[in-house]
């Protein structure tokens, strides 16, 4: 595969000598059955002070490249060819590929010259030790400090990564901290030895988007202050657009293209890069949904549409799900977790409703309640889903309280697509049996019918007798979709249905969902943490925060002109996969992190992170209500903010 060489930029002076120069690197994993080549002869050079992004989908070998540099390959992986030349401050060059993985030199390189942070901060910190201890360990190793001095330095380091009350936090165990704080602690550890290169391996993938924005900002600031280079490994082109100076694109163990960030996005040379860029939705850049059902939205927003058409298929009122946590002697101390707290929601015929929010906001619990996987604690769910064949199913029945036995018809018309393509298919059943399962109630299932279903989702008839283990993630998700549409539903509930997939596969599945909607008039409740995907797909968007619905609006309106400060924050945190637009944006500093859901603040749940919070916000919880325009007319959108009309919030511009 040809590597598109970087075109020399017109910078004055000679090119600085690279800090890290990888050439012809090969990493192989010999397994029982075959030899897996993870990295296949790549060249990569990182200059001092640059942020170099290594982009690729899962399994492209990007993490293995980074691990090879520090001798951290998991057995049986090993470097079989190539050099990794690292340039010390003295100008001397070391070939890291030749160093003994456990030798003294390599130990100095690790942490002393090259720091590393990892994807899962929760698992990358020892749960048995305080974070202070772990930072101090790095301080002692690389700065030769005494124990008390190292502890002080650790507290100082926590301050530097902006952890509030560092003296106290140093004594905390990792599980007592939020994900963002853990990643900050990891950064403090990686920086302890004052490295000249920081390798960040998907450092924000496990984090929420607002936390991601905070971590990225922190990394940028530290990089500037310390004159440090960063090798930033990610699959997310939005993050690349935000962070990178230089980008290398990796695919199947090879680097297919390398360019400065701006020219890469403007003029990708390799077809794979082009495909990636096309498959990545960018905020406010044309939507699929607009073409298909904009008419519906217009009618809705004007409030004059034919009543029959806009009458909701499913109507949720005041839905609440409370979990009780027991503790104390004999479980007498009980705390209540309002995972979903009085949510109202409507799903209209033929629309795609996007439901967004950060982890722990209750969107998945809401989905489970909708299908009665969980029984709601309060509230009602009414529907008009009954079709001709299902007359026994009384429309208008309250699903929230109906006995399990009477839910069959409802569950045929409202179906679920799961997030995990691996866990949602029974590994002990063939595709045939999996697809036949929902149809069994109506007597024997004809094979032709199942073949037809498979073809609808783009799979072949011969796939019918295979077991799930024979399929890739995307194919499994197609099977999951086929199972969902088998009963001819009116509504599909997709809970993070594409989140586990790679970008290219993701866009194929989204296309499939779009086609199915057009041909079968489906409604979708599309639950996702990914704002870009939701914008791409949804007609209407609902935003959740700490179990409450804080804003609902047509997609266009919500993204251009949010009416709730939380929505504004969320939008501002989403990186746009376009360096020009991303870097020109005005950012909003969001303070703090999602509070513990059992300790929800009184009044407005968002008030302690809201930059507009007033006295009333602490006293009175704002209801989700219709927002009025300047003349006092209804706008067809709703917000749960006392100041929805007054505030002038920042949307995302095209």
């Amino acid at each position: 595969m040809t590597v598109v060489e970087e075109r020399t930029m017109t910078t004055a002076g000679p090119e600085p000598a690279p800090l890290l120069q990888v050439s012809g690197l090969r990493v192989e994993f010999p397994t029982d059955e075959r030899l897996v080549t993870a990295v296949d002869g790549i060249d990569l050079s990182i200059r001092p002070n640059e942020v170099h992004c290594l982009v690729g989908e899962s399994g492209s070998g990007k993490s293995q490249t980074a691990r090879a540099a520090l001798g951290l390959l998991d057995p049986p992986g090993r470097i079989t060819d190539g050099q990794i030349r690292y340039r010390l401050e003295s100008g001397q060059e070391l070939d890291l590929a030749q160093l003994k993985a456990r030798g003294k030199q390599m130990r100095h390189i690790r942490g002393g010259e090259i720091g590393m942070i990892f994807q899962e901060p929760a698992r990358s910190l020892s749960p048995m030790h305080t974070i202070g201890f772990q930072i101090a360990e790095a301080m002692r190793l690389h700065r030769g400090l005494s124990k008390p001095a190292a502890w002080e330095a650790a507290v100082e380091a926590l301050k530097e990564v902006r952890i509030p009350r560092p003296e106290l936090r140093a004594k905390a165990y990792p599980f007592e901290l939020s994900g963002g704080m853990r990643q900050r602690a990891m950064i403090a550890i990686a920086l302890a030895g004052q490295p000249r290169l920081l390798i960040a391996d998907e450092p924000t993938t496990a984090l929420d988007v607002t936390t991601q924005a905070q971590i990225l900002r922190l990394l940028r600031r530290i990089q500037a202050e310390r004159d440090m280079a960063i090798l930033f490994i990610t699959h997310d082109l939005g993050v690349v657009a935000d962070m990178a100076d230089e980008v290398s694109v990796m695919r199947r163990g090879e680097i297919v293209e390398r360019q400065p960030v701006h020219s890469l996005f403007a003029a990708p040379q390799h077809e794979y890069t082009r495909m990636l860029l096309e498959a990545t939705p960018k905020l406010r850049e044309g939507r699929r949904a607009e073409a298909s059902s904009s008419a519906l939205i217009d009618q809705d927003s004007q409030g004059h549409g034919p009543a029959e058409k806009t009458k909701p298929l499913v109507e949720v009122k005041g839905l609440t799900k409370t979990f009780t946590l027991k503790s104390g002697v004999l479980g007498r101390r009980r705390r209540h977790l309002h995972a979903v707290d009085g949510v109202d929601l409507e799903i209209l015929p033929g629309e795609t409703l996007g439901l967004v929010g950060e982890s722990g906001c209750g969107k998945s619990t809401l989905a489970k309640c909708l299908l009665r996987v969980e029984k709601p604690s309060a509230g009602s769910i009414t529907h008009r889903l009954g079709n001709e064949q299902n007359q026994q199913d009384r429309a208008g029945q309250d699903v929230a309280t109906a006995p399990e036995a009477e839910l069959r018809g409802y569950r045929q018309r409202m179906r679920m697509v799961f997030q995990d393509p691996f866990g949602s298919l029974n590994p002990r059943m063939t595709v045939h049996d999996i697809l036949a399962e929902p149809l069994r109630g109506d007597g024997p299932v004809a094979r032709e019918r199942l073949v037809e279903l498979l073809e609808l989702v783009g799979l072949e008839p011969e796939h019918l007798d295979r077991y799930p283990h024979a399929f890739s993630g995307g194919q499994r998700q197609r099977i999951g979709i086929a199972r969902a549409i088998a009963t001819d539903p009116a509504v599909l509930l997709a809970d993070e249905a594409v989140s586990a997939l790679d970008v290219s596969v993701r866009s194929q599945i989204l296309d499939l969902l779009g086609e199915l909607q057009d041909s079968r008039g489906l409604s979708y409740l599309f639950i996702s943490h990914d704002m870009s995907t939701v914008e791409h797909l949804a007609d209407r968007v609902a935003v959740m925060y700490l179990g409450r619905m804080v804003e609902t609006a047509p997609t266009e309106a919500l993204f251009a002109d949010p009416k709730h400060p939380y929505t504004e924050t969320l939008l501002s945190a989403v990186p746009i996969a376009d360096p020009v637009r991303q870097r020109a944006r005005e950012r909003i500093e969001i303070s703090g992190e999602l509070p513990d859901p059992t300790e929800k603040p009184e009044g407005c749940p968002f008030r302690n992170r809201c930059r507009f919070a007033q006295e009333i916000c602490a006293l009175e919880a704002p209801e989700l209500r219709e927002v009025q325009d300047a003349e006092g007319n209804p706008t067809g959108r709703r917000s749960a903010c006392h100041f929805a009309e007054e505030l002038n919030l920042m949307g995302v511009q095209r």
Partner: protein
Amino acid sequence: MIQYTLRRLGWSLLTIWLISIVCFFIIQAPPGDFVSVLMAQAEEDGRRLSAAQIEVLRERYALDQPWYAQYWAWMSGIITQGDFGYSFRWNRPATEVIMEYLPFTLLLAGGSMFLTWIIAFAIGIYTAVKRYSIGDYFFTFLGFIGLSVPNFVLALVFMYIAFAHFGMTVGGLFSPEYVEADWSVARVMDLLQNLAIPALIIATAGTAGLIRITRANLSDELVQPYVVAARARGQKENVLLMRYPVRAAMNPFISTIGYAIPSVISGEVIVSSVLSLPTTGPVLLGALRNQDMYLAGSFLLILGVLTVVGTVISDLILAWADPRVRRQHSGAAQ
């Protein structure tokens, strides 16, 4: 933490109570009540119990009353006066017999627990770090053999070897010259020497299981990202190994010790019987064979209580050693 301790103690009291009921029913199981057995026994020996004596005993053990009153009579004796009943075989209060034999049992059980722990710890770490090496296979195989050979066979084989090749008679806790001697440093050393082999034999059964668990846990921990992260900050391999993954793998290890106590006590009973050690094992066996039920039931009760106490201690150590467990119990997480 205090809350957790209290709760844990509460549960263990309940468990002990249930065990005591089980033991009581075992005492009651043989036909005929205790006094009639005692009378028959006395007659055999050519003695005769006076009516007054019989009356006192019937009164003491509430034999004319329903079972719960008898249970209460037995239990209250134990709690208030440490009176476990009467052994007609030994013609002594059961308490005396128990006190004579229990210390050696504790010593032996403690010793084999300690050996189990040390061996399993060392081999467990070795086999996990050197997974799929020759040494790993060797120790794993050895562990399985330990698991599959009955304790008493091991004891007999050992005795046979000692006799056939070294001309030694094994058995007892003291060499002949020390049996009657006063306590001295030399006597203690002799005791420890004699204790080592039985302790090792008892340890074999439990060790295999513990090695397996340690190996599995540590193997899981070794591939955790925090190990890689510690490596990535430049820590030395052996420091890192003991500080992070071994520390984390110790938890299941500690909690398993609680469950290893019953097996050690079980092993002690059998091995001591074979090696005729002056511990509770042979006495319990004799009591059971002769239906000397107060003695048997009391031994059973004490062994059960010891086990429960051991489990509580191991649970508390676990909570003390592991911040996650501590937090779970303090009720901060679900």
